[in-house]
């Protein structure tokens, strides 16, 4: 292996390696590429002085620019908050009535509320807010705990059967499973409840069951759902006399609800959202229902 062998054609040295008579020229890196490489190195070394770079024992070089990911993002968040402040402060502090009366502000509430709803609420209540079995429809005028912005705000803050210490609590007991009602009583009361929203169901054949169910309802159910089964928003007892259902209004589902009980769960949003966000959503959800024909 000849070192320092010079190629007669180009006048360059070879690497000294040879493969079947083919030798490799020891050509230096092109000048342009080399200059670029040197510049990037200079840039990197200069950058060490501007941004946090080197560890030294129990601390590190903080850099002349004083940048830091955490303070940067915190500044950006505060920037975002002040961008939103013109309307968010109003939403957070003004009474609901005056916000609802201000169409310009409500347009902002609708677009911001739509974003918040998509990020936080849509997973359960659906992107269109129409809900599904187990998750109430928010676009209709039937409410478990009331549909005014104030009551919606309470529901958002406290949750239902949630971890919040002042959570709204609502439980439909398992009348069948916990043997508070006989099997026949469960069947009868389900027939009565089904007939409330399906008047056609009441025939000569079924009237006895429905009447027996009416008595069961009066003793076991009316305390929460009311004597006329129209529910009580103060305790989150649903209206059973209309055709809107949280879990389903067919006979089988009604029997399942009476037998096994129900205990829905709405998380608390008090810690997750700011006052302005909670109030924006309260207005948004109230407005969704109010805008329905």
């Amino acid at each position: 292996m000849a070192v320092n062998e010079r190629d007669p054609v180009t006048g360059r040295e070879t690497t000294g390696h040879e493969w079947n008579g083919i030798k490799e020229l020891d050509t230096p890196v092109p000048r342009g590429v080399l200059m670029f490489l040197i510049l990037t190195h200079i840039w990197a070394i200069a950058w060490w002085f501007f941004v946090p770079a080197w560890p030294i024992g129990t601390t590190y070089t903080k850099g002349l620019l004083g940048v830091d990911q955490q303070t940067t993002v915190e500044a950006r968040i505060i920037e975002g908050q002040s961008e939103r402040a013109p309307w968010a402060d109003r939403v957070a502090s003004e009474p609901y009535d005056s916000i609802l009366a201000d169409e310009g502000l409500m347009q902002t509430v609708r677009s911001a509320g739509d974003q918040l709803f998509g990020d936080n609420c849509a997973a359960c209540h659906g992107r269109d807010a129409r809900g599904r079995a187990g998750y109430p429809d928010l676009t209709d005028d039937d409410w478990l705990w009331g549909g005014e912005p104030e009551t919606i705000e309470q529901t958002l803050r406290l949750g239902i059967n949630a971890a919040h210490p002042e959570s709204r609590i609502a439980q439909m007991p398992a009348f069948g499973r916990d043997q508070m009602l006989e099997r026949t009583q469960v069947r009868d009361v389900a027939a009565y409840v089904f007939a409330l929203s399906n008047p056609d169901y009441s025939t000569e054949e079924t009237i006895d069951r429905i009447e027996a169910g009416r008595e069961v309802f009066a003793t076991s159910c009316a305390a929460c759902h009311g004597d006329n089964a129209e529910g009580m928003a103060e305790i989150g007892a649903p209206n059973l006399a209309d055709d809107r259902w949280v879990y389903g209004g067919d006979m089988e589902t009604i029997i399942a609800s009476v037998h096994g009980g129900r205990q829905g769960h709405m998380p608390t949003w008090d810690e997750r959202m700011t006052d302005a966000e909670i109030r924006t959503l309260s207005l948004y959800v109230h407005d969704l229902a109010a805008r329905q024909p």
Partner: protein
Amino acid sequence: MPEFFHRKLERSAIGFVLAIIAAASVGGIVEIAPLFTIDETVEEAPDMRVYTPLELSGRNIYVREGCYACHSQMIRTLRDEVERYGPYSLAVESQYDRPMLWGSKRTGPDLARVGGKYSDFWHVAHLINPRDVVPESNMPAYAFLARNRLRTDDLSGHLRAQRALGVPYTDEMIENAGRDAYGQAAPDSAAAPGVTERYGPATTVSAFDGVATQLTEMDALVAYLQVLGRLTDAAYRDTAAPEEAPDPAE
């Protein structure tokens, strides 16, 4: 002159190996070693609690099913992430994550603060068939988790392994691991009070999958998902994120 130096180095096998090792270890020396000497890289969080045995089992299932391939557990220091997911993740929040599950890809959303965001009922429905609750979801269904009984006989061993890695499990926690796993998912059982006694009153004891009589993998995974981001409230105290600090006295 530099050309001559490199030529000489290339021709010395041992010298070249040593030079490669020196160059390759710069990253480690600059990025890993300081974590042991610079205290401010990991924040203080005296309220930080360890995973309960049930949550740890759920975590193992999360690893086994490869959830980390599509879900990250790391809210970055970017405004849009903080506004969507909540305060950015702190190092201390992963203190007991061995191995860490930060992930680097989001086919699904970040899960660092998903704990408490949805109901147990929703998580179960979603894991059984994601399309039932999120029609546009492309996540696979994990219905079998609700049918698989959770293995608890080896839980003490899992806790012991975690302790060997520095997670402060006590002897009592290790001894009662299986019982605590059962108790956390059976609120009315005799084993339930021991869980809050050992892991703190803020520990959620609930029939996670809706069935208190049998301990399934669904219980474990939902318990784990519900605790994500809730082992400490350090992130709510230390950042200017819009969320207010949760007040335990409230």
